[in-house]
Every structure is written in structure tokens, then in C-alpha cells.
């Protein structure tokens, strides 16, 4: 799809950055010409058997579009790539045959976990199956204590025995996770060296390199997951590098990671588990980039797709990063039903609310929506692909929010008759009208999303009334205004290219590296020379990764983080200070930062309590530039933007009304409109079902200020 009709030649000295994101259904691509920020988008069906094929197709398509627009395509500087390969491999359990080496006495840790039930009332709850079965776990003698001191050596004979046992298992990958390996990695490294010498070709992941954090079960689970996906991801990235080289010889490959940054292909192949949540992270970065371009400080990034909605709080221009995550859940929306993964990832919540969410009547005779979803296949009833159950999309259609003739630019017709039939079945069992059920489904799904966001915001210690909601994702702009109204959020921004939103995020992502080192000690008793030594090692290691990603050293801002609490507390809080040499004089700075953070979260300090550092962290991040993207000159003037009027439901007034409909990208920057109204674009629809001020900003972002809350 060409969005730039310019026929002038691209001036010399310009270069292209390309983003490619592989999603479940589509592989999206976006090229931006620098300087200037003109963008082109491309899209093709994902090729699940060989995902790289779609990547090649999309890149070739983008290069063709850019060349058409400017005579020839400029040099491609880099390709930023996001993929769900790691997530899918774990969910579908299609990773490598993997083994585990661990300390004598804890070979059952993967089965024991934390001994908790994730649902108190489900008497047949299903627990997540470990990735490595018991007969592929080998215990090795040798022991470190909680100070990192060796209390039992790891004898050569023990290493040799482990290697022999492993050789007999016929595995492709092995994870090594030893007690207190986060403090002293000597035994883990010995095992790795022994394995590499005697079993070359085996992929080896050691816990001290993958997740250097205290807590043996979570660290083991993370290391095992890394080993499990590594052979597949390494092969994939290797082939991808080749394909990109053929299309754009000078381009370097950057891979998006869960923390909201990118890293080199080589680093990604070494620690692929960090790619786990890169897709949602890209969506948040896209929202954040739009917020920055418009000078906003506190946002709720809101993304809604076919199956889930996601919400993320970002204050001060940075999203919050969490250091533990769960993957491959047995029940997607039940916390605790998955495998714990200790990686830095953007801290967001996932809600079982999407266009495909199915409405049903529960045991108490009440209408419920989700979390089960009809997905893309069979999809909502109105898709006419065999779905018979009433979904959110069906209700959106009946309330006038979707245009049956302009879905995906008219490529897909939506059937009002099928939607009516599906809701009719529910209406009969509830003794309500189809209309009431449609309003109910949308009202309930909006309430569900607002509730989850409300609690997420409260957990982070904020008040939603101070936020701006930034909407992305196919269904995001459809529901964003109502979610904002329920949360009493006064303003909503809708980013451009909602359908290719992840790609904008990939392009906005800064280079980023994270390292961690657990060493629980009271702040006052920290061994500063050891801390300084380890921090320097972490920094050298992180710098090497940045070098491999071709990031100029001068562009990186380093910071030191500490996971801290008062001695005896169960939970810790994340503290951050600018990078400095860690010595005794650093203690005061760390303590001040801890107290400021603690006071903000909890209101007051604990008199007489002793601050303790559990885990030191190091983050290196390129300064996040404000990227301005613009569509180019294909879209000008508001004269032909009007698309008539449509009957849509206005929840705040409890009735339908005829409201004006506009073609979004035909509206010129500076245009001011008044809601209620509907703005249509190819991949999405922005519905403003209340009185509001609607403005088109210079970068084509739409700003909506709500004027009717009650």
C-alpha cells in the first residue's frame, strides 16, 4: 500500500530504516526515510512454516514502494525486527529436546514450583507442565553457599559423569542452573566448558548468564525456557540475516526485546528468552512515541486486538519495566498458571477482552463477555467464516461503530444479518432485545477493560484522572473513548497507522541492554569493592553487546538499579540512580533514592528499619529520540473527508444518534471537529460517542478531549 505519491527523487545521503513485525495473521512492515520521517507500510500473510519468507516479501515490497516514490531506493541502514517466535514455541511446546543440570537435592524444583494454586475454587486446576521432564534432569555434586563461597567442590569426576549422562539423553539443548549460581558462577562455567569441549554442537544456557537473580525455581524455569527455544531461534535468525543480506546488503539486523529496546541478532540468539514479550512492548513504544511527540508526561497506553486488550502505565516518558513475567499459561488470564520467566519486560496488563471475545450467560443468569475468544477463525459471526457465537465485533457492528462495507478498506464484508442472528440467540435466553444485548456486550467489555486498568493504575500508585489514554491496535480506537470515560481520563490520542502500530514502536525503540546481579546484603554492609568489580564486569559485557548491535558508545545512558526493601519485608521496590562508581559513598545516593521511592509508594518510611539490596541492576539505554512520522503528501485537505452520517449508539446518553463520519487521513492537520463522530481508516475506526473536541495534530495523530462524562 503506497501512502506517498511523491514522484520526486530521494535526495542523496538519505537512508531507510525498516521495521518488520510478525503477528499471528499478518506480517507487517514499515519503512521510514531519514531524515524527514516519511513512511510507507507493507503487509502480507504470515508464513508459519517459514516465517522469514513473509519478512522477505514485506521488505521487498517496501523497497519497491520507496523506489517507485523516488526513482530508486536509498541504502537500508537497518532492519528492526519483532517476532512472536519465542512465545509461540513455548505455547505450542515445539522447542528443542532439552535437559537440565542442577545441584544435588533440587532436581524436583521444576515440579514443586512454589506449591501454590492459581485458582482457589477450581478443584481440577491444571498445572503447567515443566519443559524438561524429570528423566532429563541430572543432579551434580558441588555447592556454593549464600555468600557465594564454595562449600563443596565440583570434582572433575562429577563433571565427567554429568557429561556422560547427558550424552546418553540425546538432547539438542541443555540448561545449567545451580544453587547460588547468581552469586558465584564458577561451577556453572565449569560445566559449560566441560560440555562444550566434549559435546560440541550442544546449545548450553547457564543461569548466571540468562537471569542472574536469586530464587532457584524462577531462575531455573527461565534458564530452561531459554535453552528450549535457543536452537530454533538461532537457526531462524541466521537464515533471516542471510535473506536480509540478499535484499539490503548494508543493513544491520536489530531485534526487539521485551524491555522495550533492541539488541543485536547475535545477542538475541544467545538469550532468545528476552524476545518473549517484544510484541506488546512495541505497541507501548508506539504509544509512548506519540505521547512524547505531543509533550505528554503521563499516559495509559491502551491496545485492543482480536483476543486481548493491553494496558500500560508510562510516567515521565518511560514505561515501567517489570523483572518477572509468566509465559505459556494454562489459563491465559490467570496469574500463576504459567511458567515464571525472569526477564525485564514492559510492565503491562493483559485483559481477556478483544473483538473476538464471546458473550455468554453465566450461572447467575448474568451476561458475561470473554475471556474466551472466537479469534480470527472462526471469528465473529459477522465475518461469515463459521462463527456462530455473539462477539464484541458483532455488537460493535450492530451499534453502528463498524461500517459493514468498509472493514479492512472494504476487502471484507461484515454481515449484519449474521450478527443479529448471533445476538438474537442470547437475547432470547436473557429475555431482552437484540439492541439491549448489543449495548450490554459493549458496555460490559468496556467495563472489564476499565476495571483492570483502574486496578493496574492503583497498584502503581497513580490516579487515572491525571492520565492521557493513547490508543493503538485494530480495536483500540473503537473502544478507547468509552474506556477513558469510565476511568475519568479526560483526553485520548489515536496514533497513526493503528494497524501497523507495532512497527512504529519498533522504529521508535532505543538500543537497550539489561544486566542483573543478586547479592542480598544490607546497604550498610555492602562489600563495595566486590560490587564495583561485578558492576564493571556487567558493564563490559553489556558494552560488548551494544557494540555488536552497532550502537555508538556515546549515545548510551547508563543507570544503576537496585531491587530494595527493608530487612524482613517480603516485597522489594525498584530504585534507580545515574551510573557511578559503586563505592562506600554510593550508599547515601542509593539510600536517598530508595527512600524517595518508598515514600512515593507507601507514604512514609519505616522508622528504625534497615534498607537492604536484593539485586543490583545495570541498564544501558540509548536516549529515546522523538521520532516524527508523517504520511507524506498523499493526503491533503478536508474538503472530501466527509463520508456522510451514520446511526451509532451513544452510551452516555443511552440512545442512538445520527453522527457525522469522516475519512481520517483526508483530514488535514489543524482540523477541529466536535464529537460525537466517527473517523474511519483502513485498519481501524475511531469512535467518539460523546460530546468532545476532536483535533488533527501535525503528525496526523487525533486528539480527543472528552466534554461529556455523565
Amino acid at each position, binding site marked *: 500500500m503506497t501512502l506517498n505519491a511523491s514522484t520526486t527523487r530521494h535526495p542523496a545521503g538519505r537512508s531507510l530504516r525498516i521495521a518488520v513485525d510478525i503477528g499471528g495473521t499478518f506480517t507487517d512492515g514499515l519503512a521510514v526515510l531519514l531524515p524527514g520521517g516519511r513512511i510507507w507500510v507493507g503487509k502480507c500473510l504470515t508464513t508459519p512454516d517459514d516465517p522469514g519468507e513473509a519478512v522477505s516479501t514485506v521488505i521487498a515490497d517496501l523497497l519497491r514502494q520507496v523506489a517507485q516514490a523516488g526513482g530508486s531506493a536509498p541504502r537500508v541502514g537497518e532492519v528492526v525486527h519483532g517476532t512472536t517466535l519465542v512465545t509461540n514455541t513455548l505455547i505450542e511446546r515445539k522447542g528443542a529436546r532439552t535437559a537440565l543440570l542442577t545441584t544435588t537435592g533440587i532436581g524436583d524444583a521444576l515440579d514443586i514450583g512454589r506449591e501454590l494454586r492459581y485458582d482457589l475454587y477450581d478443584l481440577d486446576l491444571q498445572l503447567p507442565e515443566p519443559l524438561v521432564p524429570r528423566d532429563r534432569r541430572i543432579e551434580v555434586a558441588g*555447592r556454593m553457599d549464600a555468600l557465594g563461597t564454595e562449600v563443596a567442590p565440583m570434582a572433575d569426576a562429577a563433571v565427567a559423569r554429568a557429561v556422560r549422562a547427558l550424552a546418553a539423553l540425546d538432547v539438542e539443548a541443555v540448561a545449567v542452573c545451580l544453587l547460588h549460581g547468581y552469586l558465584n558462577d564458577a561451577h556453572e562455567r565449569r560445566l559449560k566448558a566441560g560440555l562444550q569441549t566434549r559435546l560440541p554442537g550442544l546449545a548450553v544456557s547457564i543461569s548466571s548468564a540468562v537471569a542472574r537473580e536469586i*530464587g532457584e525455581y524462577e531462575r531455573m524455569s527461565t534458564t530452561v525456557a531459554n535453552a528450549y527455544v535457543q536452537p530454533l531461534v538461532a537457526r531462524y535468525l541466521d537464515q533471516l540475516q542471510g535473506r536480509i543480506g540478499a535484499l539490503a546488503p548494508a543493513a544491520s539486523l536489530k531485534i526487539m526485546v521485551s524491555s522495550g529496546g533492541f539488541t543485536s541478532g547475535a545477542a538475541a540468539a544467545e538469550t532468545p528468552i528476552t524476545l518473549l514479550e517484544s510484541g506488546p512492548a512495541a505497541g507501548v513504544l508506539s504509544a509512548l512515541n506519540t505521547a512524547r511527540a505531543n509533550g505528554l508526561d503521563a499516559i495509559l497506553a491502551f491496545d485492543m486486538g482480536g483476543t486481548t486488550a493491553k494496558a500500560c502505565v508510562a510516567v515521565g516518558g518511560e514505561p515501567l519495566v517489570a523483572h518477572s513475567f509468566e509465559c505459556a499459561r494454562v489459563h491465559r488470564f490467570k496469574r500463576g498458571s504459567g511458567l515464571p520467566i525472569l526477564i525485564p519486560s514492559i510492565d503491562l496488563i493483559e485483559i481477556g477482552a478483544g473483538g473476538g471475545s464471546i458473550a455468554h450467560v453465566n450461572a*447467575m443468569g448474568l451476561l458475561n463477555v470473554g475471556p474466551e475468544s472466537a479469534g480470527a477463525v472462526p471469528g465473529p459471526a459477522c465475518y461469515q467464516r463459521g462463527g456462530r457465537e455473539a462477539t464484541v465485533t458483532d455488537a460493535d457492528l450492530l451499534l453502528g461503530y463498524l461500517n459493514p462495507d468498509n472493514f479492512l478498506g472494504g476487502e471484507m464484508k461484515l454481515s449484519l444479518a449474521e450478527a443479529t442472528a448471533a445476538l438474537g440467540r442470547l437475547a432470547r435466553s436473557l429475555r431482552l432485545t437484540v439492541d439491549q444485548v448489543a449495548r*450490554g456486550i459493549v458496555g460490559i467489555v468496556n*467495563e472489564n477493560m476499565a476495571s483492570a486498568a483502574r486496578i493496574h493504575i492503583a497498584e502503581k500508585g497513580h490516579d487515572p484522572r491525571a492520565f492521557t489514554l493513547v490508543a493503538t491496535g485494530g480495536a483500540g480506537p473503537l473502544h478507547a473513548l468509552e474506556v477513558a470515560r469510565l476511568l475519568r481520563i479526560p483526553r485520548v490520542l489515536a496514533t497513526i497507522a493503528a494497524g501497523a502500530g507495532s512497527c512504529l514502536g519498533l522504529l521508535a525503540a532505543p538500543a537497550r541492554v539489561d544486566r542483573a546481579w543478586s547479592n542480598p546484603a544490607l546497604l550498610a554492609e555492602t562489600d563495595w569493592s566486590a560490587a564495583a568489580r561485578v558492576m564493571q564486569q556487567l558493564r563490559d559485557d553489556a558494552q560488548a553487546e551494544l557494540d555488536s548491535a552497532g550502537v555508538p558508545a556515546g549515545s548510551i545512558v547508563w543507570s544503576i538499579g537496585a531491587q530494595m526493601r527493608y530487612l524482613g519485608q517480603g516485597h522489594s521496590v525498584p530504585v534507580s540512580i545515574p551510573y557511578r562508581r559503586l563505592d562506600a559513598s554510593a550508599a547515601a545516593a542509593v539510600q536517598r533514592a530508595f527512600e524517595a521511592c518508598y515514600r512515593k509508594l507507601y507514604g512514609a518510611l519505616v522508622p528504625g528499619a534497615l534498607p537492604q539490596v536484593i539485586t543490583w541492576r545495570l541498564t544501558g539505554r540509548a536516549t529515546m529520540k522523538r521520532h516524527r512520522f508523517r504520511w507524506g503528501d498523499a493526503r491533503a485537505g478536508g474538503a472530501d473527508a466527509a463520508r456522510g452520517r451514520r446511526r451509532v449508539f451513544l452510551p452516555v446518553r443511552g440512545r442512538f444518534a445520527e453522527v457525522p463520519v469522516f475519512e481520517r487521513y483526508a483530514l488535514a492537520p489543524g482540523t477541529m471537529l466536535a464529537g460525537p463522530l466517527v473517523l474511519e481508516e483502513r485498519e481501524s475506526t475511531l469512535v467518539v460517542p460523546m460530546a468532545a473536541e476532536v483535533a488533527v495534530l501535525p503528525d496526523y495523530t487525533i486528539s480527543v478531549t472528552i466534554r461529556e462524562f455523565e
Partner: protein
Amino acid sequence: MSAAAGRKKAAGAFDPIELEILWKRLVSIVDEAAATFVRTSFSTLVRDANDFAVVLTDAQGRSLAQSTMSIPSFIGSLPATVRHFLDRFPAHTLKPGDVMITNDPWMGTGHIHDVNTAMPLFHEGRLVAFAAVVSHMPDIGGRLRNSGIREIYEEGLQIPRLKLMHAGSADPAVVAFISQNIRVPEQGMGDIWAQVSACRMLEERLQPLLTGRLLDDLGHEIRRRSEAAMRAAIRRLPDGEYTSRVEHDGFEQRIVIACRITVKGDRLAIDYAGSSPQLPRAVNVVPIYTFAYSAYPVKALLCPDVPNNEGSFAPVSTRAPAGSILNPEYPAASGGRGMIGHLLPPAIFTALADVLPDRVWASGSANSSVTMSGEHRGHRFAVINFLNAGQGATASRDGYSVLSFPSNLGNTPIEVIESLAPMQVVCRSIRRGTGGAGRHRGGDGLRFEFVVIADVPVVTSFIMTRLKSAPPGLAGGGPGALGRLELNGCVIDPSDHWVLKKGDHVVMETAGGGGYGAPVRRRTGQR
């Protein structure tokens, strides 16, 4: 929405959509207050084990919404506490800004470690609701928790029903009394003030919903539908009397729980007549806790989706004879109420095994724990590690190995234990084959083994269960293996206080769960 809902109310009942939306919003507001409370609490049990509840009740103390993550102990407890407050402080005497407080086990949750507060909420001068919070305190004074305690006086500070705040001002005498009697007053009072903040937050966020009779109508409709759902679920059970008898290791003698469930039409009555008398030990279970741990398995078996309100449990009743271990008289001690209370779900499962053969579990074992305190590397430490056990099998699957039930308390990572306490863990492993035999096997227990490595003595207390009476199987399934506790190779009594020294080697083993159904027959000649 409030205006629209208010109008609707005048027209009559809610439709299933308005009700769902308003109710979701109430629960969400309560959960928001709960999230804020958890953030500000000092108690690790609150933060790590959800040992708290936030509840909104109507003006008569009937539940409207309860925080989602609460553990079973709090089913029905806070609304009952509000009603006890109303007996002491009648509605017409309450003023905006009043806060009432108590930790009376009979009026609260069954032990004094949980402190309850409640705040009346007013709209245009009319009492419309109560915000209430209960949570496990970091400390409540008295002796450290131990089942050897004989009377409540030893357990710590008792707070009768008092006003903590009068019309927005704290009562200095109440604050001084509490502060003087607990070990870490900043943290203890900190948690109490966090409860008050949560109540205030509920009050503020609820303002738009307090108009008219909205809450009353909403509560009525939620209770009506909850009750109808539970009655329909009970009606599916055949009428009859179903009995069981379960045993606890006890002390000098075994403790017996006798359970008789009468199902008649749409009502289910549980009678514990014949259970052991109350004991001069901290294991007595007051009626509110007896009810909570009876209601929990009934709900999980019959109707897991109903909310915890008076409607859902109107058709369910529990009774136990006065003076029995499930209905003890003052001044019974109750700090370790869970040891006995956790036997009620297996008692109810066992009683209903014939009529719900596809739902119930064979017996398993509740959690055990080891608590150690002393000095390590110049600092005082106190570490608690929970050990879970094997759970019973069902008609369709093996029992869970090493899983927390009916409470939900996780283990502490070995790396964390070793960084806090002078000990080295030798193993934490599954006791393979300890689940009872059967068509489906019981879940396996846990082996946790450690060595003390410090020169200074370590005060250690063990809570262990199923060391003498094994979890029985169901429908011909075999019992799980017994648990055991060993010090340096010798079996020891967990109810004693132990002081461990360097080199002491401790082995704790939890029981396996019972099997379900007779083991599949092998060829003759083979066992």
C-alpha cells in the same frame, strides 16, 4: 451511569446487563482499594499470601462486594464483624468519620492476629454502607505462635469492639494501648492506618454509587441471584444424610471431627456433633472459621462462580456443639485454628463422596511449616518456610503432589532461606511413591532436609500434621504415607520448642494424599 442507574431503579429491578456492569464496578472499586492496601501493608502474609480482605456491605452489614484475591478464611467473616459492631454501636449513634476496630476471634476471623476495622459510609446524612478491612498483623504481642498455648491471654493483645476514630479523629487512648502491646508498633499501627486509608478510598470512589437506594437494590438483586444459583446447585444433590469422620494427630489424644451433612431440597446443613471437645491448646476453631472452611468446599464443589455473600450461603448452615473444638468457649486459644479448620474440606469431601463421586478429592494433608529465629551475621532473623503435602486423588485423575490446600501458602526459595538463616538445605524433593495406591494415585509428599551451620543456637518451631493418622483413600483407594520429623536420625515431637545447634540435621517429610478407587488388578501371582 449513576444517573441512568438511579432512574432505572425507580422503574424496578435491574436487567442482567445493568446488574453485571454495576456489580463489576463495585468489585473493581473494592479491588482498587485492596491493591492500595496491599501496597501499604507491612505484613508479609498480606503481601505474599493474600491474608486480608476488603469488603463493602450495606447498612445492615450484608456483603455487597468482596476483594477478589481473599483466601477462604474470610468467607462471610467481615460482614459478620460489621453486624457485631452494629450490636455494640447502633446505627443511629454512628457518625461520618467513625472507625470501629476489634480482633475478637469470635466476632472477627477466629484468631487475634487478624485485626478488623469498619467505617460507616453516609450519603446526605443517611447511613448507606460500611467499608471494612481485615488483615493479618505483622505482630500482635503475646507469646510467639505455638500450639502449646493454653488460653487466649497468652496469645497477645485483645482488642474488644472499640472506636478507633470518632468523627474523623483518632482516639489517643486506643492507639496508645495498641502501640504499647505489640512488638513493632510502627508496623502494626501502620497496617491499621492502611486499613483506614483503604476504607476512606472506598468511600471516595463510591460517592457516585451512593445515591438513592441504588446499593440496597443492587445488593438485594445480587443476593437473590446468588441464592437462586446455590439453591439450584444443592437441589441437584439427592436428599439424604451424609456422614464422615476425620482424625487429626492431636496431642495426648487424637482429635476427631465428626461431620453430618443433611441435604433436603434446596438446603444443606452441616452438623459437627460428636467432634472432640475444645482443648487447652491454640487449635480451637470459633464458629465463624468453622463456617468459612465449610462454606469453601461447598462452594468449590457445587457452585464455584457465586460470590461470597449472604445469598450464596443462605441455604447452607453449620453448627457444632458449644464447648467443642469447632465451637469453643472463651478463653479458648485459637492462634493455630488452621490445624483443625483445614480438616473441614476433607471431611465434607468424604461425606459427599457417594453423591458427588466425580467432584470430590480423597483426603490429603494441609500444610506444615518450620519457623526459625535467632541471630545470624549480626542481625536478628525470623524465617518461616511452609511445606505442602500430597493431595487426594479423584475419580478422574491422580492427586496433586506438594500443593497447598485448602489454604494457599507457598514455599520460600532455598536461596532466600539460606541468605537469611544459618542453614544449608540438603534437599527439597518429592517423596516419590508416597501417595496412596488406587485406580488414581494420591499425590506425593515433600522431603525437606537441612543442616544448621551457625555456632549460635537457632530457636525452631515446627507445625506438622499427618504424622500419626494417614490421609485415607476413597472408594477403595489406599492411604497416603505418613509424614515424619527427624532430628539427627531420631523421630522428634513437633509440638515441643527446639533449640538447634551447629551440625544438627533435620528431616521434615509431609504426607502423601489418599488414592481413589481400588488399584487396577494385576495378573494373579503379582502383587
